[in-house]
């Protein structure tokens, strides 16, 4: 589904990704661990195509197509979707309008919002005065409407209380089609800083990104246990 080869990226002349290689097959969800500032969000923003993130070297392929130079909206149309860690507040633009843009299958936005206890926010300006949890919910609901084949989630659990985590976990599983009775077709790339996410979604692989490089990969639960026990420094020396 997604293949990244030797990706070097900088922002305003500063290198943020230094030769990243990553492959996510169809149906798999991979988790990206790493310290603040290690380049996790930069990787997602680069895959989505944000212009500040200049690709100096390397290639990003999605569904077998080289998308390295494609504009953002074309990547979105091809089936890449992203829930932002800190989405912007857009004055004057109603949340419902953005939901309508995302709604490719013409489902009922009201029913979806109702199900996730979000109805009161549909007529509000996007993210203006939203709490952290409300923003995360808004992001996930937009992705549910967009129904992308590659789901990228940037720290979906941060700033969310426990009660809402379960609700959001439900949304994430729906997004990633984590049901036993179906063959998975959706892929996921999820950033987690605190690892709570592992309690809510079934991940197939994990990586540790440090200083713009992938240092470790393996079973996500085991990786996270290792990080909890030894910190990220261990990952630098471990060449797994």
């Amino acid at each position, binding site marked *: 589904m997604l293949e990244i080869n030797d990706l070097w990226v900088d922002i305003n002349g500063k290198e943020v990704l230094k030769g990243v290689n990553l492959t996510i097959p169809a149906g798999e969800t991979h988790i990206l661990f790493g310290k603040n500032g290690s380049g996790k969000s930069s990787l997602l923003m680069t895959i989505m195509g944000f*212009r500040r993130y200049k690709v100096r070297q390397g290639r990003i392929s999605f569904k077998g197509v080289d998308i390295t130079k494609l*504009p953002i*909206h074309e990547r979105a*149309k091809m089936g890449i979707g992203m829930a932002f860690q800190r989405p912007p507040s*857009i004055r004057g*633009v109603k949340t419902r*309008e953005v939901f309508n*843009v995302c709604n*490719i299958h013409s489902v009922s936005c009201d029913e979806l919002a109702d199900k996730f206890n979000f109805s009161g926010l549909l007529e509000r*300006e996007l993210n203006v005065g939203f709490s952290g949890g409300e923003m995360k919910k808004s992001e996930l609901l937009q992705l549910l409407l967009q129904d992308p084949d590659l789901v990228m989630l940037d720290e979906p659990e941060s700033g969310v209380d426990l009660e809402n985590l379960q609700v959001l976990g439900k949304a994430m599983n729906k997004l990633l089609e984590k049901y036993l009775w179906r063959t998975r077709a959706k892929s996921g790339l999820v950033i987690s800083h605190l690892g709570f996410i592992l309690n809510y979604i079934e991940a197939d692989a994990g990586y540790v990104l440090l200083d713009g490089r992938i240092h470790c990969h393996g079973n996500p639960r085991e990786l996270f246990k290792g990080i909890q026990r030894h910190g990220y420094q261990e990952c630098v020396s471990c060449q797994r």
Partner: protein
Amino acid sequence: MSEVRKTRAEQAKEKKAAFGSDVDLLKYQLLSNHQSDPLELDPLTNEDRVKIIQSGIDLDGQDKAGTFFQTDHRIVHCSAKQPGLEVLPTAQALAEYPWLEELYWQAVPVDADKYTAQAELHFQNGYFIRALEGQRVTTPIQACLYMKHDNTAQNVHNIVIAEEGSELNIITGCATAPSLQSGIHIGISEFYVKRGAKLSFTMIHDWAEEVMVRPRSGIIVEEDGLFLSNYVSLRPVRSLQMYPTTRLIGSGAVARFHSILLAPPGCELDTGARVVLEASHTRAEIVSRTITTGGVIKARGHLVGLKPNVKAHLECHGLILADEGIIHAIPELEGHKSGVEMSHEAAVGKIAEEEIEYLMARGLTEEEATAAIVRGFLNVQIEGLPPELQAKVDEAIEESEKSML
């Protein structure tokens, strides 16, 4: 009294305005004002009709409580359909109501500048709209001031009175004929909102590229009165300068100003609103949304708190869509007592890249994302404005979007 006024006007004939570029009034022809009765015939062409509709006016006027229509210096139509509502040419109102002399030029000084002087010395009518005491005229009244003759001056004087406990909702469309290239419109407007009355005034301007516009408005709001102003100018105009002053003279009086302005290349807009809170427990709000696609905008606002326990807020937001454009926001707060609560918020800049890219990540093209953000920026919902008038404002915005982006 009128002699004193004339003398003051004569003395101000050469007086430049405090703001805006100076206009040589001698360049424009003054049409004769010897016409007292409305014309029988409708002299509008189909092209005129299109322009008038674009400025928010319904030509059949069926759903309106009253209609006033003036082309250049001539009254074309004037009617009031609801009891308790009066719509008259100003000259007729002055002749019929001797008491009107007392109010005439009270909200705007006759010698403010050369434009007020010209309006007095070369008076070409205008409208008088009045709701009698306790009459709630909720259906809008429409007024249109149309300029058809090229290179002329239109000097009108309007008076609007909402008597005690009454309500008036007015939409005015000011426009020029497609054939007109240059001209000057001078519009004196005096608004008197009496105790407990409500007056909403929505004005949509649609001028031509070489037209100069110098409205001069004054508003006096008494105890518990409410004045709402909604101003939209999204079409090219050479130069527009106006800075209406509102006096809130009675406890509980409220004034709200909302304006939406677009300056294409070659256009100079110097506009704003000033509210003087002269009584306790008065409130004011001034909100402007301005966009330049190459023109120059000065967005002014001035709140003057003279008594304690007043509350007022000023908001100037500007969006620069072309590097050649300039937006200069000038918010002023002037508190004279410790108990005043006044604030302002001003922001000028381009659309944030992250907002555009965020919407692109949801599938919109860059142009679609920009349009959605601009539309949102201009989306000013005015509390208390009848839905029909809000719809007119929304229509004007929608129509201008195509040319803006």
